[in-house]
């Protein structure tokens, strides 16, 4: 890897939005304690697109759920600005695997769920704009089962953005989609990120997806989960899907892959694409 960065990182400031310090997490199970996170320290910078990359079961979802305040740490702290995150925070919204829509609600009702929970009238204008933006206008009365996987995930993005959070935590959101839909969604999320300037932490096990989306890629190693390395990705934006076939991109993928293999002996569980 000798290509020097020709472009400055396109987004993200040096202000730290979320600071994770010495995050350690044990799960108590019947067969004993599972060490899921081990002294993870990581900064998420304001407005950056951070990808957390790791093999299945490396604790990346645990890390993300902790950042969302969905469960506590055994030790360590997670800060959002000056506030410790110990419970779900209104500035942080989560986007789950497989869209996670409620099958008994139509799209409109699914998207209004956060407002219902917060006992606020839904911001219809904002919701309609977002639906229009992701191409779901006119589908408000459809039920999740009537929509494709990609459309469901678009709806879940609208649901999370509708409450205007400043941080989006995305937990392998496109993992269950086919390759074409996944490309489409990656482009969409890049556009939304560029338009809104949200801070995004995006968990994935695909090296290519991480490089395509991220300003920085934090690579995690497994059992116990640790941050192994952090890579800057200085590819200019907007990035097109076909950059993934260019030699420079492939070189980056292979570089990360070789470092992981070097570090772990084998990189089982990683997908290149």
């Amino acid at each position: 890897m000798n290509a020097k960065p020709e472009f400055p990182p396109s987004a993200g400031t040096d202000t730290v939005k979320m600071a994770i310090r010495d995050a350690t997490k044990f799960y108590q199970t019947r067969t004993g304690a599972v060490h899921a996170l081990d002294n993870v320290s990581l900064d998420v910078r304001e407005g950056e697109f951070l990808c957390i990359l790791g093999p299945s079961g490396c604790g990346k979802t645990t890390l993300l759920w902790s950042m969302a305040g969905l469960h506590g740490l055994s030790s360590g702290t997670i800060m959002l600005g000056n506030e410790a995150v110990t419970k779900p925070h209104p500035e942080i919204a989560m986007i789950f695997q497989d869209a996670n829509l409620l099958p008994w609600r139509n799209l409109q009702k699914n998207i209004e769920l956060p407002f219902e929970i917060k006992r606020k009238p839904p911001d219809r204008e904002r919701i309609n704009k977002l639906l229009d933006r992701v191409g779901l206008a006119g589908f408000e009365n459809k039920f999740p089962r009537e929509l494709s996987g990609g459309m469901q995930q678009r709806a879940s993005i609208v649901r999370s953005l509708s409450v205007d959070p400043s941080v989006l935590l995305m937990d392998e959101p496109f993992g269950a989609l086919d390759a074409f839909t996944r490309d489409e969604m990656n482009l969409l999320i890049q556009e939304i990120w560029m338009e809104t300037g949200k801070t995004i932490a995006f968990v994935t096990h695909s090296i290519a997806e991480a490089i395509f989306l991220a300003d920085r890629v934090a690579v995690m190693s497994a059992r116990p989960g640790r941050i192994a390395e952090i890579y800057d990705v200085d590819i200019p934006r907007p990035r097109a899907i076909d950059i993934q076939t260019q030699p420079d991109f492939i070189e980056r993928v292979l570089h990360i892959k070789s470092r992981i293999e070097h570090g772990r002996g084998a990189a089982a569980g990683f997908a290149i694409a």
Partner: protein
Amino acid sequence: MDKTLGDKIPEFNKKPGSGSGGVGLSGASFGLGDHRTKLEVLVIILVAVIIIGGAEFLIYAFSVPQYVLPPPSMIAAALITEFPNFWPHLLVTLKELFIGFAIGGSIGFVLAAVITQFPFVEKIVTPYILLLVTTPMLALVPLLILRFGFGSEPRIIAVALASGPMVMINSATGFRRVDLAKIALARSFGASTFQIFTKIRIPMAMPMIIVGLMVGSIFGLLTTIGAEMVGGAEGLGNRLTYYSALIRMPQFFAIILILAILGISIYVFFFWLGKKWASWEA
């Protein structure tokens, strides 16, 4: 070519990975579920006409005595002309069924909702509930009559005892289907435990709750009629013993017709409720 596959589009329904246990009568399905074509409806009506007309004809042709089986026309006539006499008894039966089911159903529902939150308590309580489900509560009616007399109270108690455990065991199966991701979703938007209960757990359990209500109410109807046959002077069950003792068979069968309509109405009501509230789970 495989016949069952035929020209079907190769699509597979992905079922959400929710473990719905096979406790109680969870298999009770909504048999009206299939859509029927006009032809099928026509044939169903035609079959009814043939059976009723055939019965009428055969009874006259073989001059079957009225006390063995009255012809359908006489049953219909009895139903219409004597309906004012049946009406107060129908009201008594409905009142007993409704109050008993309301008590049993709500206790069963609340108990299911609470108990499923505590796996240990649930494991202890379940065998006893199963005992209540499998023991015919009708057997307790003579005992209840000794204690409460010949009024409506013993029957209401029997109905509650018969329907409550049915509602509870099915609802519990529903509440046991925990989808961690959906709870996490609600929690991530700041939902309280109570909001998670009302917005996630109850809708999630709704298909099984409705099955429980349906099976419970049908059991309640059985128990009401049975209890009325055991003792007392009111209710459709009492009328059955009364008319059979007097060998007034047209009236007897007219009461049976009313009971059949009652049963079907209950079934259709819960089927409709299922369509309305639980259609997301085909």
